[in-house]
C-alpha cells in the first residue's frame, strides 16, 4: 500500500515506504486517526439512535404485538371450538336419551301384546285340555261298559259250557265284584 510513497519521508516511514518501528506508536498519525474515529462514531451513533434502533425496536414490538394478538385470537377460537363441542355433546346425549326412551316404550308395548297373546293361548290350551279330558273320560267309561258286557257274555258262555245254568243276575254280580280291582 505504502510502497508508492517513495518520495516522501516522515518520522515513521523511510524512503522505501517501510515502517520505522511500530506504526501503532507513530505519534504523527494519531490525530488523524482520532479525528476520523470520532467522526465515524458520531455518524454511527446518529444513524443508530435516529434511524436503526427505533426501527428495529419498533419491528420487534410490532411482532410481539402481532404474536400476542394472534395468541389471543387463537385462544378465542379454541374457546369457541370447545363451546361447539359442548353443544354437540349435549345434542348427542339428548338424542341418546330419546332413543332409550323410544326403545323402552316399544319394549313396553311389545310386552303388553305378548302378555295378551300368552293369556289367550293359555285359555285356549286349558279349554282344549278340558275337552280332551272329557273325551278321554267318555272313552274310558264306554270302554268299561264294553268290557263289562263282554265279561258278562263270556262268563255266561263259560258257565253254560261247563253245564251250569247261567243266571244272568248272579253272573253280573260276580263280574262286577271281579272287576273291582281293575277299574
Amino acid at each position, binding site marked *: 500500500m505504502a510502497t508508492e510513497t517513495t518520495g516522501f519521508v516522515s518520522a515513521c516511514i523511510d524512503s522505501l515506504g517501510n515502517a520505522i518501528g511500530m506504526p501503532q506508536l507513530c505519534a504523527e498519525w494519531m490525530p488523524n486517526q482520532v479525528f476520523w474515529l470520532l467522526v465515524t*462514531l458520531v455518524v454511527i*451513533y446518529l444513524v*443508530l439512535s435516529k434511524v436503526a434502533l427505533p426501527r428495529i425496536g419498533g419491528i420487534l414490538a410490532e411482532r410481539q404485538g402481532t404474536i400476542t394478538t394472534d395468541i389471543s385470537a387463537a385462544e378465542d377460537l379454541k374457546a369457541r371450538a370447545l363451546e361447539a363441542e359442548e353443544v354437540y355433546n349435549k345434542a348427542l346425549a339428548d338424542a341418546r336419551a330419546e332413543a332409550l326412551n323410544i326403545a323402552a316404550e316399544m319394549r313396553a308395548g311389545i310386552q303388553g301384546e305378548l302378555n295378551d297373546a300368552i293369556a289367550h293361548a293359555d285359555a285356549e290350551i286349558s279349554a282344549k285340555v278340558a275337552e280332551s279330558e272329557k273325551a278321554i273320560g267318555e272313552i274310558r267309561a264306554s270302554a268299561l261298559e264294553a268290557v263289562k258286557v263282554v265279561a258278562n257274555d263270556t262268563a255266561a258262555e263259560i258257565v253254560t259250557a261247563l253245564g251250569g245254568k247261567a243266571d244272568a243276575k248272579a253272573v253280573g254280580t260276580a263280574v262286577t265284584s271281579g272287576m273291582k280291582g281293575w277299574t
Partner: protein
Amino acid sequence: MDQFIVSPLFGDGPIAWYTPTNVTLWMVLTILAIGALLVLSTSRRAIIPSRAQSIAELVYGFIYKMVEDVAGKDGVRYFPYIMTLFMFILVTNFLGLIPTAFATTSHIAVTATMAMAVFLSVTILGFWKHGFGFLNIFWIGQAPLPLRPILALIEVISYFVRPISHSIRLAGNMMAGHAVIKVFAGFAVVIWIAPVSIAAITAIYALEVLVSFIQAYVFTILTCVYLKDALHPHH
C-alpha cells in the same frame, strides 16, 4: 508491520488531522456496512424478517439483553451508546480481516480513544449520579476494616488501569492476529513449507474471525460492567 501504515488516500504528503487516509476509507466502509446491515435490511419493516433483517434483530436483541443483564434496567438508557461501540468494533474487526484491508482497531490510538471515552463518560456519569458517593466503589464495606485501605488502594489502581487494559486488549488482539498471519505468510516463500504455511494461515484466519467477535463482545461487556459500577457504586 507495513500493513498497519497509515497513508493518505490522495497523493503524498504529511498526514494532518483532517487528511483523508486509509483510516478514513475503512471507517467510511464500516459506516456503510453498518448502514446496510441495520438500516437497509430493516427498511421493509417486515413482521416475518428476511435473512438480513433477522441478523439485524439478532444483534439488537443480543446487545440489548447484554446491557439489561449486566448494567441493569436503568442502563438501557445508554443502549445506543453501547450499540455504537459494539457495531463499530465488530464491523471494523471483520472488515480488517479482508486481505489487504486496513484494520483500524489494531491501532492503539483508535482503541485508546474509545476506551478513554468510555472511562471518562462512565466516571463523569458516576460522579453526576452519586456525587462523592461514587467513591464507594473503592471502599469495600464487606472487607475487614484493617484491610479496607489496602483494598481501596488496589481498587483505585485497577480503576485507572481499566482504560489501558481496555484499549490494549482490543488493539493487541487484532494486531497480534494480523502479525501472526503475516509471519506465516512470510514462511510461504519457501516452496516446501508453503502448504503448511497456507494451512496455518487458514486456521489462524478462522481463529481470528472468532477473536474479532469475542473482542468486540468483551469490549462491549466490559463497557457494560463499568457502566454498572457507575450506576450502582455500592458493592
